[in-house]
């Protein structure tokens, strides 16, 4: 196959694969119910409702970290053993037949949660893969938290708290370690919007159930179970999600437009200033769905005309079906062949040098300022 025709083939593929505007190749979800005790049944149901949704939309169990601080399904007080219901109609059993809880009971701690997020070198080598968030810089991560909280904190198991600063720092560390591409943070707790107010890392979209000094309320009670079964905010989010399927083109803006403070009994908030894309372009399935994305590179021209389609783990598929594994390839290798466009890299390097010069100037300037200040004070004496 000649290079030019290959390039022509690439165009529709690129158009097809890249139409969403999101460049992620895998999806991960961290779902946390931070409340213990039977009367917090609704928080377990919240997290399990999200679990069902992300699983239904295609995120496999291996990519979902589910943390449940208590076991309500097999609680002796549960009239329906092995079941968790999120509505008094009890039509849908969330605990069901196929559930994998990764962290449960006493394991749900602030420390474990932060270790899951920041991971890589922060967990013991023998910790199984199911308990790790094995994301990369092409992962879209969805973090859902629920529990009892307050102004800039969320309680874990009634014994410890995680603050908004902790989460913001953990996310910043994730960004530095290239552990996410885009991150969607959703929290359902009292004064929830304070929890995302401290984020400062790029590509973070956040939403919460209530503004500061405002409670989040439960949605409905069940007489058989005896306690509230779900929170209002999560209930309406899940109601919206039930209308979404894997190929849905609904955007995050559509989700946020469904927020109705009258029905939810609190004022949900959205923070999108760190999020580069328009909410009208960001699909709901970018975060809730397990949609695999492939990245198309232009084929290298020259001696070895071959059709490289880089999918996630950099395995190259040739037109005749054979697979070339090119793990060792670097930009210079490809550049030597002549196919890869080196301009972005050069631009990035130049940018890096420029910023280095900038940094130097800034350092010298600040030193000079400090020295002059010291000198001025000394001369006064």
């Amino acid at each position, binding site marked *: 196959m000649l290079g030019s025709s290959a390039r022509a083939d690439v165009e529709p593929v690129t158009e097809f694969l890249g139409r969403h505007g999101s460049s992620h190749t895998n999806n991960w979800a961290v779902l946390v119910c931070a409340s213990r005790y039977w009367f917090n049944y609704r928080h377990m149901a919240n997290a399990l409702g999200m679990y069902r949704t992300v699983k239904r939309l295609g995120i496999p169990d291996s990519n979902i970290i589910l943390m449940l601080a208590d076991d309500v399904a097999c609680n002796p007080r549960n009239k329906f*053993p092995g079941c968790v219901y999120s509505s008094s109609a009890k039509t849908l059993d969330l605990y069901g037949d196929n559930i*994998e809880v990764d962290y*449960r009971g006493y*394991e749900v701690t602030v420390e474990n949660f932060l270790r899951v997020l920041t991971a890589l070198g922060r967990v*013991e080598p*023998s910790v199984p893969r*199911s308990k790790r968030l094995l994301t990369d810089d092409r992962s879209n991560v969805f973090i859902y938290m629920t529990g009892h909280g307050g102004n800039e904190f969320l309680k874990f198991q009634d014994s410890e708290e995680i603050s908004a600063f902790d989460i913001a720092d953990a996310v910043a560390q994730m960004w530095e370690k290239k552990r996410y591409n885009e991150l969607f943070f959703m929290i359902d707790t009292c004064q929830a919007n304070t929890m995302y107010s401290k984020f400062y890392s790029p590509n973070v979209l956040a939403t919460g159930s209530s503004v500061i000094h405002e409670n989040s309320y439960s949605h409905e009670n069940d007489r058989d179970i005896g306690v509230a079964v779900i929170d209002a905010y999560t209930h309406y989010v899940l109601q919206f999600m039930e209308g979404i399927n894997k190929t849905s083109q609904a955007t995050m803006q559509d989700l946020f437009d469904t927020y109705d403070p009258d029905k939810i009994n609190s004022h949900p908030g959205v923070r999108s200033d760190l999020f580069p894309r328009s909410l009208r372009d960001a699909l709901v399935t970018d975060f809730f769905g397990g949609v695999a994305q492939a990245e198309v590179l232009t084929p290298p021209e020259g001696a070895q005309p071959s059709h490289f389609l880089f999918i996630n783990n950099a395995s190259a598929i040739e037109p005749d079906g054979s697979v070339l594994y090119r793990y060792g390839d670097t930009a210079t290798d490809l550049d030597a062949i002549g196919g890869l466009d080196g301009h972005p890299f050069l631009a990035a390097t130049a940018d890096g040098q420029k910023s280095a010069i900038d940094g130097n100037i800034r350092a010298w300037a600040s030193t000079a300022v400090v020295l002059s200040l010291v000198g001025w004070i000394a001369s006064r004496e």
Partner: protein
Amino acid sequence: MGDTLPTSVDERWQGLRNSLAGLFCASLGHLDDQRTTSPTLTFQPEGSLPNFTYPHQLRHATLPSEHVCTENLTPFLKLLPCKSLSGIAHLLNPHRVFDADWHGLGVHVRYRERVGVEVRLAFQAVFDPVRYSHDGRRDHEPLDVAMKWPDENSFAYREHPIKFVHTDFADIDSFAADTSKVSSLTDISVRRNLKGTSQADAHLTLEVTNNLPVRVKTGYLETMPWHLQFYLHTLCAHVDDSQRGKYQSYLPHTGVSILCPMWLLALGLDEGTPIDAALFHRPDDLVNILSYTPPVPHSRPALLQAVLTLPPHTTLRLTMDVSKPFLRYTEHPPDAQRGWDLPPAVLVPFAFGEEDRPEFDPSPSNEPNSTWVERRVSSYPRRHSRPRRIYTPVMLVDLATPDFSMPYNVIIMSCTLIALIFGSVFNLLTRRFVVVPVDPGAADPEKDAAEEVAHVDGGVCTAKQTL
């Protein structure tokens, strides 16, 4: 554990429990050093191992507060070839089995020569058919489990004889009165409880009832976290409520009575070495070989192993005083007021009247069901097979819990005190106190304040000057 090959036993133990935790969605990763013991008497290696006497190490840990629920069954079913879709696994409907009166889930792995690694998955449940029947009928049919294997028409299951005890419920009073004569369903029953209202001391009781007409020897294992510390010198044995003597054991070479585990440490015994059988060997008593590894607070559990001799048709009661230590603030679980779950005691019956067989001579007139008993006794595994273990239920101990808001009170109080002290000391150091005579003719004291005077009080001014 993958590519990194841990070398030490403890590293591999950690790897094992972490992998099991990941595989079965359980909190088994929590089985740390505070729960791990090495009871070599009670648990002996199974499977085709090179040589039994070869030096080996054993690790044993219990997680008493763990719930078993649907998420544990899911990975369990995924190990089966057809999941729960066909075969006997079809019975494993999570909603039914977790509604059972009792359920248990087990995974046994052992190595067998020329066979490989054998994994046995076990699920046990006790159902109450009356509770399941819609109209509460009691004349239920035996459970129908005729189902299909993937490759067979039907599978054979060993049918246990189903016995119905017909009782006349009209005569309920006499029925209740006769319950003492009803033969027990189990050969050996065991009950363990903790008495005492104090938050510092308690009384541990173990009651083992031998329902067989022969003498039974059984291993007894108690792995106790350091949340409960034994006073071994108070160990007493009662047989059918008559005391058999106090086990005031003596160290042979010193003659010092052992008062508490701490004394053992004081006597220079290494913490790691279990106090050996020889120290406590009392051949003609009911508690024979006592091996005890004292706990190390905040790090290692206690391990008590003994061989109990149960006379026929008697109840052996062991009592012992225990003390409850005071936990550190951070060592309490999130639901501290609920109490701590203590691991079960384990009994391993291993000898059924073998050495005193001549004594056991039941005449048909005395023991009408002696053949039945013989059959039951002989049905017990003797040697070279898997020993049967009896576990007691988990016990709950109520430890002294602090008021968890107390640290915050302390922090607030101490911060206030420090602020007060620092403020006054700082003021004393940085201010100069002088007596300023106030001229009554002065027009306005505020004018003076423009210079130095901060406050006027009864003719004496406090002058402030920065140092």
